């Protein structure tokens, strides 16, 4: 139990791992995309901010520069440079000389045109004169450990006010006068990025944990618990408690399994009861036979010796009298033993001529109590002067009792109606007459008791078609055609048939099948003339002249009808199967199977017609 339990836990673990992995992938992708767009947004926002700042500085210093008031420009740059996050504000001229800087030590120094800040314009040998806004920014680290730094280059273009100014420092032809370079620390952006990454990781872990917990909970509720219940049930069944039922597990697959399990257990319990019952009867029979047998031998000793003494002591009347008591009593014991053995041999059918009417009356008598309990009466409509038929009276009575009890169970109290009617009917031999004896021309029996068709010994012939040889077992019922082919037989073609013993041909070359023109086979059915059939598998022509001449045979038909609950249409084909029961716990499901067997043994037929809530009619036909 524990092992399996662990196994199912494993299913839970696997599910959790699988869902966890899926969650990681989904959240990972989501986070990556989200983080990327978030940091892009942050960065572009920062860039915009930096650009704006650089424009602001450019504009703020413009007047100062136009007027060449360096102090004022310095003042502005220094003031703005103290803002948090701003690292450097530099303005250099076209030659690369730093003219203004918030770091006064740098003023007057030259900037390497190949340095990162100049890179945007000076990659090509000819410096760019116009720099689009997007290309003005750059991100770099001063050294690998330091935080990232954003630099914004803002070229200062020559404008009419510059060359119209009093100082005339810049000629009109000059396009770019210098560059405003601001570097700002990206620490805040990085910080924001890190925070959101951490948040996302926490979110991912939390959701995986939560999902796992939810899955674990439902796996336990929906899988582990029902499986444990089923396991417990199998354990109970295993130790023989067939009355154990699995509680309702809902409408899911396991619930269906549970119900199927209960159904199976019920069937098993029924089968066990039936087995037990038949086993009990069989062992009682065996016991009786065994006891009788064992007693028989010593009884023989007593009887022979006693009767021998009786003869020997003829002249002694006193002893003679005593001895005759011994002989008489031993003969009585002999009769008791005989009775025991008769009981043991009850299963052997003992057929005799009986009146069906009488059997029906006896059956009604047996079920009288049950009829009384439900306030029912049986309406009997029997045809007068029905012929006597040869049957095992006990078995046929068992059939009637079973069917009457079934009807009583099916009908409602008071309102129920059970009707039994009998009549004499004539049925054609087709589908009814059985070939019980078959011989080839050399009088070898063709009857095969090993392969049975419809429970009856079949007729075995050897056959050849297209060079292939095998055996065919023919259906012993005239007109039924449930032949068994021991090898692949092609339809539409004739087959050569032989006696399996002497290989004499069974085909009749003088005749052809009147239906399809193929060859026909023929064998004798002593004492009922010849049997003929078509060798073409696709054709089912058969002729048994002796039976056809007898024509329709008399059958006694017994109908037992009720107006009870009826049998659903889908169950009808199965009701004669062993263990099929519609009575739930009440029945064993063997009654109708046994009934079918008994009727079949009598060469009779049993049919059922039923409509739900209208009633059921069983029709039995027994040959006269």
């Amino acid at each position, binding site marked *: 139990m524990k092992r399996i339990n662990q196994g199912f836990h494993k299913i839970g673990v696997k599910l959790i791992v699988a869902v966890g992995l899926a969650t990681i992938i989904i959240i990972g992708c989501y986070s990556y995309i989200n983080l990327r767009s978030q940091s892009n947004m942050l960065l572009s926002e920062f860039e915009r901010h930096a650009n704006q700042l650089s424009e602001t500085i450019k504009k703020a210093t413009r007047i100062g520069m136009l007027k060449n008031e360096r102090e004022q420009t310095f003042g502005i740059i220094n003031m703005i440079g103290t803002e948090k996050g701003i690292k450097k504000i530099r303005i250099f001229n076209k030659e690369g000389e730093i003219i203004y800087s918030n770091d006064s030590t740098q003023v007057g120094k030259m900037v390497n045109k190949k340095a990162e800040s100049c890179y945007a314009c000076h990659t090509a040998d000819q410096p760019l004169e116009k720099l689009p806004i997007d290309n003005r920014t750059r991100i770099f680290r001063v050294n690998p450990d330091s935080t990232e730094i954003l630099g914004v280059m803002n070229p200062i273009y020559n404008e009419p006010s510059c060359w119209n100014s009093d100082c005339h420092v810049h000629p009109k032809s000059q396009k770019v006068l210098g560059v405003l370079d601001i570097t700002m620390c990206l620490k805040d952006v990085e910080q924001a990025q890190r925070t959101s990454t951490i948040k996302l990781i926490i979110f991912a872990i939390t959701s995986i944990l939560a999902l796992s917990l939810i899955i674990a909970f439902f796996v336990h509720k929906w899988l582990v618990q029902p499986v444990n219940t089923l396991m417990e049930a199998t354990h109970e069944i295993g130790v023989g408690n067939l009355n154990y039922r699995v509680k309702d597990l809902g409408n899911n697959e396991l619930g269906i399994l549970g119900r199927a399990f209960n159904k199976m257990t019920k069937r098993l319990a029924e089968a066990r009861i039936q087995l037990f019952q038949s086993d009990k009867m069989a062992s009682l029979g065996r016991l009786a036979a065994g006891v009788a047998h064992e007693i028989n031998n010593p009884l023989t*000793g007593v009887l*022979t010796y006693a*009767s*021998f003494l009786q003869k020997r002591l003829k002249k002694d009347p006193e002893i003679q009298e005593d001895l005759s008591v011994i002989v008489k009593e031993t*003969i009585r014991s*002999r009769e008791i033993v005989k009775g025991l053995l008769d009981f043991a041999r009850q299963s052997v059918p003992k057929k*005799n001529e009986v009146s069906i009417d009488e059997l029906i009356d006896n059956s009604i008598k047996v079920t009288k109590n049950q009829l009384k309990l439900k306030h029912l009466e049986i309406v009997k409509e029997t045809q007068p002067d029905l012929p006597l038929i*040869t049957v095992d009276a006990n078995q046929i009575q068992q059939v009637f009792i079973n069917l009457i009890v079934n009807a009583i169970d099916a009908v409602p109290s008071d309102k129920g109606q059970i009707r039994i009617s009998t009549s004499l009917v004539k049925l054609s031999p087709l589908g009814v007459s059985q070939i*019980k004896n078959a011989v080839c021309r050399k009088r070898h029996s063709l009857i095969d008791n090993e392969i049975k068709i419809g429970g009856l010994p079949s007729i075995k012939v050897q056959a050849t078609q297209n060079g292939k040889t095998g055996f065919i077992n023919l259906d012993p019922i005239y007109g039924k055609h449930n032949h068994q082919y021991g090898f692949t037989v092609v339809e539409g073609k004739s087959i050569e048939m032989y006696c399996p013993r002497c290989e004499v041909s069974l085909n009749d070359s003088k005749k052809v099948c009147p239906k399809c023109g193929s060859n026909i086979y023929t064998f004798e059915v002593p004492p009922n003339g010849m049997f003929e059939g078509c060798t073409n598998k696709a054709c089912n022509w058969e002729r048994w002249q002796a039976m056809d001449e007898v024509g329709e045979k008399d059958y006694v038909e017994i109908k037992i009808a009720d107006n009870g609950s009826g049998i659903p249409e889908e169950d009808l084909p199965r009701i004669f199967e062993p263990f099929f029961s519609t009575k739930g716990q009440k029945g064993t499901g063997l009654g109708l199977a046994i009934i079918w067997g008994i009727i079949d043994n009598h060469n009779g037929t049993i049919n059922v017609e039923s409509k739900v809530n209208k009633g059921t009619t069983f029709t039995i036909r027994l040959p006269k």
Partner: protein
Amino acid sequence: METKDILIIDDEEVILDAVKKIGKMEGFTVEAALNPLLALDMLEKENYKLILCDIMMPEMDGFQIIDELYKRKLNIPVIMITGYSTVENAVKSLYKGAIDFIPKPFTFDELMSSISRGFKYLELQKQIEGTQYNTSRDSIIYVPCPPKYMKLGFTSWMLLEQEGIAVMGATDLFLRTVDTITNIELMKKDDVFYQGNSCVKLESADGLIHRFMAPIGGKIIERNEKLIENVSLLEKDPYFEGWIYRLIPADIEYDMKYLIPCSSDRI
């Protein structure tokens, strides 16, 4: 080689002893074999007139003994002794060639009547052998049953008269194995018996009571009342006027398996 009267084969010592004692009392020489193999050894060394044999024995069954006798060409009549549970087997043994069977447990009288019929049968067989070379017409030992009849062993016959009705009676050979019949006791109408059951009690002049085995099972619909008035009719015309019962066969197809067509007598 000396010829003994009876060889009894049974795996029950008490039965051997009882049969030995009964035989001795009646003046027969009886030898017993506790197992079939020993019996076959004894048959090599000595001649016996009659064999009594149990059907169910450990090493070999009664049928195998009959087969073995046939193989050795020993023409010794065999009477089967059977338990009740093997009535079918008993019928089968008659089919295989046993002349009679005695169901266990049996009384002194039952055993003696069977043995006496056995010896009588042997005597008749010898007469037949004797007359084989004698073509004289007067030397008919017994009247065989008519060709359409079927018989169980050599005892009883039956004939299907019309569909579903059979008539049965005793064969002439059987009647010749019993002394003059003095009394006959028949079963009642509507009584039922099975193949191999004793269905008639015959009392003969020598005081023995004989079982008469039914050739087929069924229900009696008519009995020959004339027989009760005049028993001698049975011996005078066993196949026609001396019929015993008219009956409805129970399972004629099953019973037929063990019946022998009378036509085989005429060869």
